[in-house]
Structures are given as structure tokens and as C-alpha cells.
């Protein structure tokens, strides 16, 4: 193998209150695909942003082809040959494919754009990626896969030496993924150094030569793909929790008890194209069902279907044995289903409103505008939940946008708890929360279950899922691959299923 094209050593990056990267090393060889792996918050995107000059570093050096570099921004990085393609396609949908590939560097004569040569140039670049589309078509008429490839073509238009692909496959279907991986391989043959970020384990194993694993901002290690198994990789990504939580008092109902309880919600062949493949699932009153799977495995999509945040294109839902349809969140709310989204900011909080207002929002929505909760009642509720969940600052009138992530999460939890749901869906409720708050939320789940509330619990932390759940549903590549009773189930078993899709 040739010498390193890019090296990053001892990278350290601190944000107020968070050490995002702590002494991370990374290297990239020409003609290789190098996967950067880690769960959310591991520091992958921070590392990419440091590389492309979006962030400066607090310590550490980056060298490109032997010279130390510190890019002032993505533009500068691109000039130097480091091009990035993001998950969200950053192109203009209303312009033609050719323009999206070439605009900014289009061939011109006396300021006049040479449309003919521009189209040919775009066609050539796309042909290099084995894409043959009408380049004068509007980009929006192309599939997401083609758009993604157009973005890559644009990145290659400059003399790229390093190509960063940040989750390029997350919105593609199986056939499209194949196409993209083929392109990645052929670019590798052409000598490009490719940094590949993906949450899909098999894609990584299919295409990467080498992988670097990060966890909590720290480098876990660099491995050759040939030397590591999927199970080992997942273990390294997730890690074992170092600190053992204080054991929860066993107040929740037992598996046998919940199995005997009436079925609250029953989904049959429920599915949504591009979200999750059809699955069937019965949820009993008082039962905690854990969803395990890596990010992008379809666990969030499954939860959204159960609430009505998205509507299913296949299958049916019965609640208390009566067929019903969950077409809107409102339908979910009316059936006393609650859904705590993993995207606090975009799908949960109304940041410019106060803690109190955010807490009462769902309850108020279900009552309609004409039946307001009295201010006294609102204050009462807000104060009660601020106390119960230990929300800080303990000020109902604080703007929710100014709270820390953990406290925002508790506000949202309070919003749903006061609607007294029969089924509570929690998507990553403990992400980015300190250990104390985590325990509180877990204890709360156990207690709610004891009170007869069914809970669907999603977490990237397997220990947590296993500790709380009566049953664990494992997802992989947008498919339910296993439904297991939580009896003698170990994290290793689940991990093996998550990674390989076979029941261990």
C-alpha cells in the first residue's frame, strides 16, 4: 500500500460543556475506502467538519499529502482536493442536472455560458459514475439516488483526491444502494481516497477496506475489514456501559403478567415504503416492548407508524380489538397513544414558548382551543412535573429553548404523561442525558408499566433496552428480524441479531 494521503493526529475539539473529540487519530490512503463508524454523538460528524474546515480544532494537526493544512471552510477544502457529499442533497432541485454538476465552474466564453460543452462535461462526469441521464432535465425529476450521484459528480468535478461521503445511502432503496456502492468501488479503483460514513453494517462490510471506530469522542481503534466481524464492530461501537446503574427495584409487572394482560394494540403487516417493511406486533397493556437496532434500522419509522406520525401504506391496526386507522398524529392522540420523538428540536419543542406552555400543548390540543386549561391548572401541572421530573431551572416560565437537552427531554416527557396515554412510545428518551436523569426516566418507565401503561422503548443502548423490556423487537435494514422474550437474553445475543440478522 502506498503512503498516507491524509493524516489527522491528536484532534481535540471542545464545545461549551461537551468534549466532542478527544485525541482522535485518523488516516486515509489513496485508493481505499475507509469507513468512519460510531453511534450518534460518537464524534463522526464533528471529525468530518474539522477535516473540511467547518470547525477549527483546539489541538491536533491535519496533513494532506505531507503538508500541514487547516482549511478555512468547505470551499477551501474543496480547492485543496477534499470534497464532501452530505446526507441531505445540497443541490438546487429547480436547475438542470448539468448545472448542478458544473455551476460555478461552468465553461464560459466572454461571460456567456457554453451550454453544449457544459452538458458534455456533465455527461462525462456522470458517465464516470455509470449514470446515464438526460443532463438537461431538472434535478427534481431525478430520483434521490441520482441526485446523490449528481452531488458526487459535482464533488469530483474539481480535482478531488479525498471524497467524503457522509451517510450517502440513508435515503436509498436496495437497488440504488448497490449502484452507489459500485460507484464507490470504481472511484477507489481510480485512486481516490474515500471516507465513507454509514450506519448500515453490511454496506460498510461490502465496500470498506478499513474502518475507524469512535465512541463518545474517543478513538476506539482502526481495523482492517478483513480482521473484524460485524459482531465485534457493533460491540466496539456500542461498548459496555462502564458505570453499572443502581438496580431498579423490581416493581414492574412480570413477563407472565403482561402476557396475560389484554392486547392493547395489534399491528398486522403494517409497513411504509422507504420506512419500514411490513411487520406484525401485538402490544399488551402494561408491557414494555424494546426496539433494538442500529440507527437507520427502521426503529424510528416503526414507532412513527404506531402513532400515526406517518401513515402506513400497507397493513392494519386494531386497538382494543377494533380496527382503526392511524392517519394523523391526532388520531394517535385520540386513541391515547403518545410519541416522544428523537428529534427534540425539530419535532418536539416549540422553542420560543415557555416550559409550561410546552408541557400543556398536547393536552390542550386534545381538548381543542375552546376548552382551555385554566392558568391555575396549567401552573399546577407544570409545577408538579417540574418537581417530579426534576426539571431545571424549576421555572415554568423559562423559555424552553434555553434549557439543556436533558431538561428539554423531560419537558417533552411531561407533555405526554399528562395526556395519560395508554401507549407511550419513547424514541431515544435518554440520549444526551446525564446518568442521574437516565435512571429517573428508567424508573419512571417501570412504574408506568406497573400502572398498566404499555410502553414502546427505543434506545441505542442495549443494556437499557434489556433492563426495561418484557420483549425485545430487533430491527435491521428496515426490517423486523426478531421478536424475543426477554428471558436470559443477553446484550451479545441481541447485538449478534442486529449485526447479522440471524437469530443467535
Amino acid at each position: 500500500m502506498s503512503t498516507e494521503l491524509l493524516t489527522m493526529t491528536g484532534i481535540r475539539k471542545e464545545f461549551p460543556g461537551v468534549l466532542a473529540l478527544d485525541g482522535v487519530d485518523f488516516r486515509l490512503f489513496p485508493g481505499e475506502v475507509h469507513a468512519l463508524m460510531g453511534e450518534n454523538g460518537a464524534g463522526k460528524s464533528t471529525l468530518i467538519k474539522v477535516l473540511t474546515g467547518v470547525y477549527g480544532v483546539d489541538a491536533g494537526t491535519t496533513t494532506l499529502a505531507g503538508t500541514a493544512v487547516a482549511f478555512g471552510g468547505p470551499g477551501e477544502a474543496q480547492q485543496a482536493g477534499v470534497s464532501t457529499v452530505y446526507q441531505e442533497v445540497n443541490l438546487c432541485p429547480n436547475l438542470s442536472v448539468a448545472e448542478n454538476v458544473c455551476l460555478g465552474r461552468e465553461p464560459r466564453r466572454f461571460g456567456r455560458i457554453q451550454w453544449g460543452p457544459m452538458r458534455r462535461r456533465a455527461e462525462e462526469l456522470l458517465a464516470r459514475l455509470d449514470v446515464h441521464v438526460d443532463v438537461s432535465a431538472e434535478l427534481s425529476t431525478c430520483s434521490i439516488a441520482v441526485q446523490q450521484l449528481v452531488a458526487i459528480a459535482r464533488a469530483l468535478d474539481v480535482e478531488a483526491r479525498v471524497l467524503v461521503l457522509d451517510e450517502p445511502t440513508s435515503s436509498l432503496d436496495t437497488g440504488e444502494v448497490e449502484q452507489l456502492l459500485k460507484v464507490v468501488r470504481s472511484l477507489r479503483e481510480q485512486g481516490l481516497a474515500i471516507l465513507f460514513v454509514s450506519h448500515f453494517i453490511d454496506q460498510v462490510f461490502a465496500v470498506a477496506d478499513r474502518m475507524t471506530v469512535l465512541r463518545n469522542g474517543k478513538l476506539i481503534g482502526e481495523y482492517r475489514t478483513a480482521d473484524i466481524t460485524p459482531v465485534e464492530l457493533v460491540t466496539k461501537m456500542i461498548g459496555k456501559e462502564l458505570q453499572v446503574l443502581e438496580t431498579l427495584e423490581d416493581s414492574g409487572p412480570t413477563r407472565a403478567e403482561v402476557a396475560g394482560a389484554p392486547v392493547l394494540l395489534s399491528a398486522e403487516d403494517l409497513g411504509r415504503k422507504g420506512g419500514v417493511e411490513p411487520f406484525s406486533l401485538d402490544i399488551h397493556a402494561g408491557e414494555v416492548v424494546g426496539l433494538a437496532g442500529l440507527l437507520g434500522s427502521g426503529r424510528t419509522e416503526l414507532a412513527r407508524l404506531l402513532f400515526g406520525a406517518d401513515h402506513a401504506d400497507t397493513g392494519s391496526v386494531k386497538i382494543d380489538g377494533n380496527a382503526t386507522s392511524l392517519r394523523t398524529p391526532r388520531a394517535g392522540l385520540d386513541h391515547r397513544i403518545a410519541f416522544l420523538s428523537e428529534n427534540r428540536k425539530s419535532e418536539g419543542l416549540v422553542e420560543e414558548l415557555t416550559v409550561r406552555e410546552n408541557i400543556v400543548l398536547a393536552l390542550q390540543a386534545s381538548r381543542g382551543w375552546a376548552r382551555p386549561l385554566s392558568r391555575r391548572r396549567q401552573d399546577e401541572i407544570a409545577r408538579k412535573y417540574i418537581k417530579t421530573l426534576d426539571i431545571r431551572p424549576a421555572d415554568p416560565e423559562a423559555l424552553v429553548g434555553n434549557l439543556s437537552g436533558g431538561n428539554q427531554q423531560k419537558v417533552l416527557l411531561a407533555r405526554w404523561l399528562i395526556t395519560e396515554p395508554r401507549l407511550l412510545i419513547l424514541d431515544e428518551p435518554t440520549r444526551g442525558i446525564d446518568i442521574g436523569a437516565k435512571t429517573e426516566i428508567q424508573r419512571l418507565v417501570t412504574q408506568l408499566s406497573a400502572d398498566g401503561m404499555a410502553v414502546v422503548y427505543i434506545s441505542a443502548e442495549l443494556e437499557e433496552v434489556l433492563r426495561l423490556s418484557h420483549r425485545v423487537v430487533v430491527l435491521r435494514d428496515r426490517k423486523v428480524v426478531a421478536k424475543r422474550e426477554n428471558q436470559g437474553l443477553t446484550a451479545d445475543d441481541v447485538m449478534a441479531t442486529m449485526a447479522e440478522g440471524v437469530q443467535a
Partner: protein
Amino acid sequence: MTTLTRIKGYRPQQRHLPILATMALLIGAYIFGASSYDAFGSGQVVLDLFINNAFLLVVAVGMTFVILTGGIDLSVGSVVALSTVISGDLLQKHGWPAYAAIAVVLVVGALLGAGMGALIHFFEIQPFIATLIGMFFARGLCYTISTEAYSIDNATIATLAQTQIPLGGELHISISVVAALVVVAVAVYVLAFTRFGRTVYSIGGNAQSAMLMGLKTGRTKIAVYTISGFCSALGGLLLVLYKSSGDPLNGVGLELTAIAAVVIGGTILTGGSGYVLGTVLGIMVLGIIQTLITFDGTLNSWWTSIITGALLFVFIVLQRLVTRRTR
């Protein structure tokens, strides 16, 4: 490969649908007019559409640039009025030579536009509010310069106004029409063949992406408002030629007509899609409706605005359906 070639089946008429509809409407209206009224069929009626609406056409071209970026310019009517008033003041009161006055008017218009563009870009004031302030400002300047209308009798202006360019037979056009068509031609060229023009479209498509693609979005934004200011000033000058007067009450509500013409011409108000030629068609449609109502003689003038509103409704719903289907 298999999945990708499928996508090739792209139909160009989709995004051209609104503009084709406008064209059909225009032709339909003309045929209707020609079959109902004998005089309507004469070519001069069509040419008169251009002669009567030349100033409006120029203003609407400027508006098209702004709307293509997803912005809006409410100040155009006031800037038109201001241009006529400045012309009147300089020519009549101060006895300036015509070309010097014309130069001053054009510079003032462009500067006003640039100022609004700067407010929008640097201080992130919404285009609606910034140009609304510009609207009041320009109209206020009009009144401070003169509360009375100037009657303009400058010799050069009179010559420019009265020159008729014969097109053979009985047909003729005015200098204003030539000026307006030159503006249209330049605008078509700039939008289709320059990086600036394509940047205008890219901002309307996705301003964030355009910036990440390394395009100079800030500069372009300021430039489109400058262009709109310049076009409004030029439109004001053409109005001076048309009416031989400078009146602070000129162009009240003109911004609405211009916006309506742009929308009927198929440009989408959220930006990123549309053509200057569509705007020309939009102006023609509004003009022909006016002409039809004049020919009819029994319909009152208010039907113009009601029909314009109805057309707006039809075209907006049409655009909505088209964009929904492409998504």
C-alpha cells in the same frame, strides 16, 4: 444501472405547463376578440398592446428577477412615480437637458433598489418589509419634490415620444416598445446564459444549497433588487414618454399588476422557476383583457380587476397542481 435509466422518462412540458396555458389563453382571447369585433383583428391592436404596456413590461421584467430569487418588490409603483416626478422636476423646473435627466433617473432608481437589497441581505429584513419601506420612501420623495403633476414639454422627450417606427402597411410601433423589447432581450440573455442569471434561479431553488455550491448569493440578491429599481426607473421614463407628464400619483397599485403579470406568466412566487417570456405573455394577457373590455363598451372597468383576480386564482391553483405532481 437498471434503476437509473428508468428515470430518463422526463417530460419537458411539465414545467412549461403554466406558460403554455397562458399562451393558449392569449390566443383564445385574441381569436374571441377578432371574431367579435372587426377592428380587433387588425395587427395594430396587437402592436398597441405593446405600445400601451411598454412601461409596465419593463417594470415586470425587473419584478421577474426579484421573484425568481423568491423575493418580492413592492416599491416598483412608487419608483415609477418618482422617476416621472424627477424627470418633470429636472426638465421643467431646472431646464436640464433630457439625456442628463434620464441618466439621473436611472441612477436614482438603481440606487434605491440597491439600498433595499442591502437591507434584505445585510440586515436580514424580509423583502416584503424592506420593499414596503422603499415604497413609502419613494412615494414620500415624490410628494416632497412636488405635490402637483408636471406637464413635460421638453423637445427631446417630445421627439422620442412621437417618433413612430413604421413596420410596413398601416402598422407602427413607438420607441418605448423598442426599449422594452431590448430590455426583454437582455433579460432573457442574462437569465439563460450568464452565471449571474443561473445564480438567480439557484437562489430561488434553494438559497442554502446555492451558497454551499459556492455561488455568490449575497451579491446576487442585492443585484436583483438593483435591477428591479433600474427597470422601474426606466419604466417611469417610458411612462413619461407615454403621458408627457410627471405625476406623483402615477403607478399607484402598479406593483400588484406587475406581480400578477409575472404570476400569470408562469413564474412561481416562491422562486426558482419561470421565464421572462412568460412575463411578456402575462402582460399581454392583462393588456388584451383591458382591450376586450374597452371594445365591449358595456362592461365596466372593474371587470378588469375581477377577471385579473380570477386568472390569478386559476394560475396559482394550476401551479400548485403542477408542483405537487413533480414532488
